[in-house]
């Protein structure tokens, strides 16, 4: 019990120190605020959206945004090929994009950290197998795998996550495994081992709190990447099933209309750009204040 409390406190202290340093970083703050705004938008989407995000009306198709000729205030950002309101779709789309980003990173972290800790701590045969497998995955072109998964299981939310995390965990695995090998040789671990503390407890309550900010930094930077990947996979026809609003599939579906109805693809593109930019600014701030070793990327 006591050790649990202690490790929790250690976690807390580390994070607190971390965020207090972050205060000195204006761009990171800005990024953080924008992310929070997006999260808030996603949560209260039903209150914000003026229309149903999936309400089609062919009579209202391809209305331009309000500031262009033919635009109306009731469809602020215009409508798409099926007459769905773009603003409402963008607002609801934040849910999918953020959810995909957070879940894909979350699952990758979970797998990568657990395997990385075990491999880095115990080494041996297990480490050898997992490391080889990770190398194999790195050499296997990601998109080919993603296309294959989508072909087998069909496009959709869960399968998209599967495709994104299939290789996503490898980076976290490598990071944690490396940190683990370093930390393991440090005095506090040796002391704990000498005292007869179990391996699991050492890993969780001694080492993990010390590698948590490295994971946080990498996780933040990967978050933006995952959100972009959703769009890229949509481009290859592997996104979210319609009519669910997701930015990636909106950008991708609108690309054929770039010359006639630029807003269908461009406005969700800008929404995505701002979010990912903010995530990256925030992540970079985190990186700056964290362990200097990480600066090498």
């Amino acid at each position, binding site marked *: 019990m006591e050790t649990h409390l202690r490790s929790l406190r250690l976690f807390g202290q580390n994070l607190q120190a971390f965020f207090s340093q972050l205060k000195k970083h204006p761009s990171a703050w800005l990024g953080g605020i924008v992310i929070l705004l997006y999260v808030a938008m996603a949560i209260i989407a039903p209150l914000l959206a003026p229309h149903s995000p999936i309400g*089609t*009306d*062919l*009579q209202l*198709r*391809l209305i331009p945004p309000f500031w262009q000729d033919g635009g109306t205030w009731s469809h602020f950002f215009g409508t798409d*090929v*099926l007459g769905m309101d773009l603003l409402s779709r963008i607002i609801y789309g934040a849910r999918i994009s953020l959810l995909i980003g957070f879940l894909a990173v979350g699952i990758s972290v979970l797998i990568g950290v657990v395997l990385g800790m075990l491999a880095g701590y115990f080494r041996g045969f297990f480490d050898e197998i997992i490391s080889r497998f990770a190398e194999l995955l790195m050499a296997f072109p990601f998109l080919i795998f993603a296309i294959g998964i*989508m*072909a*087998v299981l*069909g*496009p959709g939310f869960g399968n998209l996550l599967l495709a994104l995390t299939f290789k996503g965990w490898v980076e976290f695995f490598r990071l944690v495994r490396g940190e683990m090998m370093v930390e393991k040789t440090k005095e506090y671990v040796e002391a704990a081992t000498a005292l007869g503390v179990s391996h699991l407890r050492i890993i969780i309550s001694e080492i993990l709190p010390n590698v948590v900010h490295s994971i946080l930094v990498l996780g933040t930077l990967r978050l933006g990447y995952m959100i972009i990947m959703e769009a890229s996979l949509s481009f290859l*026809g592997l996104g979210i*099933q*319609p*009519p669910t609003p997701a930015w990636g599939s909106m950008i991708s*579906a609108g*690309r*054929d*209309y*770039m*010359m*006639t*109805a630029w807003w269908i693809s461009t406005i969700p593109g800008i929404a995505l750009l701002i979010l990912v930019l903010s995530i990256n600014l925030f992540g970079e701030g985190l990186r700056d204040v964290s362990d200097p070793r990480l600066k090498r990327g």
Partner: protein
Amino acid sequence: MNKKTLKVTAILLVLGMIMLTGCGTKAASVEKPAATTLNGQNVDPNATITVGLSASVLTLDPANHRDRNTETVIRNMFDGLVTRTVDGKIVPEIAESWKLNSPTVWEFKIRKGITFHDGSPLTADDVQFTFERILKEGALGNNLSSPRKGLLGPVTSVVKVDDFTVQFNLSSPWPIMEQMLPHQQIVPKAYVEKVGSEEFAKKPIGAGPFKFVEGKLDERIVMERYDKYYGGSPDLKPVGLAQAKTVIFEVIPETSTRLASLMSGQIQISQKVPADMIDKVKADNNLLIKSAEGTTVTMFQMNLKQKPFDNVKVRQAMNYAVNIQQIVDTALGGNAVRLAGPVLATSFAVNKDLKPYPYDTAKAKQLLSEAGYPNGFALVIDTEADLKTIAEAAAADLQKVGINATVRIWDWGVLKPLLLKGERSMALTTFGNSTQDPSDFLEPTLKAGGGGNYSHYANPEAATLIDQAKISLVESERKDLYVKAQAIIYNEAPWVFGYAMKQTEASSKKIVNWESSMDSRINLHDVGILAK
């Protein structure tokens, strides 16, 4: 052409001339031939026409593919016994004339004086060899067989009668023989036997208007005018050598990129213009939209093996509930032709008495109630990415009559086996009918066991009619049979009858004498570019 565009064209022409004379020092040192006249316009005999293709070309061997796009390219280097006009009529090409000796024996007379690009004359031996290569297993070398055999239906052998006569022997009468023959192109026997099929595909030699220069199949294929061409079909004017000196097929799969290339002048003809781009192209002073009635049918197939579509009332209700006319008018911008039943509106055998199911939600609801589904049911419409918009529009219509319809996008390779196994309930899909004859359309799509029969429709009466029409050689009799079959199918409504998408392409205004072809091929023999 209105006054404004005329003016702009005139200005462009003048500008072009100034530019030509301005930077003409290099051009002037080369020979400067007089322009030739085509359709009353001066065309440049040294012109290069560049076409943007929407997909890679698979091979340059006419016997070794099953792909319309590949055939489009090959058709410019190879001629067939017969060919089609842009609206799908059969006209002679290499064959001068033909006749039916008996219901299962056709005799073709071959035009004299035709040469292949290597100068060797084309004779009955080449024709016989061409068809043997397709019919015999393993005839392509390396134990490979031609994937085009199925396109020859009941043809069992092709034999030479004399140097300029061949005879086709069939196992049963085949009324669509003439319509199917444009799909086969004649190859030179001596050359293919000498170099082998593999080498032949790399350096193809045909008897068509253009000869192969160079090319990578995923990138660009270049051809040049063949100067000893016999002139092509006498029914396709002008007869003679090709109008342009060089033609290039560029592979540009991404639609927006292909149209951007057209607008920036990199290419002069673009395949496949999506409906929503048509207005944009029309607004461009340098471009024209070309369209023809299409031969690909789009329909919603309902699985009769499963509830609720085992009930004919439900299927009829679906036809009342989906507003196909609105989809055609808005989502497709009017670039499609609505079909009342399964058969193309341009087919000789279309049943003109059938009127499309009207959009009537009340009637749909009533039929659903009668069938025992007063509150509708849940439905997933399966389709491919290309048809996503249409499926979504239909789903929205179905929701209005209480059917909880959603759309699922699949990779076709995955979906097709599931459809054939009868595991899905409704699929929005397409099926091609380039012959415009119901024979090779109704059989695969609406007869038990057909490769495209995803509704698992098996009406014995309709099947008998289709079978009879398949072997009859009397057109009026065939028409009667198909008209009857269509009436049955219409009432039983295994599909939500859809539409035939128009064949829409775009070209530069400099292109002279080119029209979109119903079967989607782009034949450049008679096409020129305005002289500068």
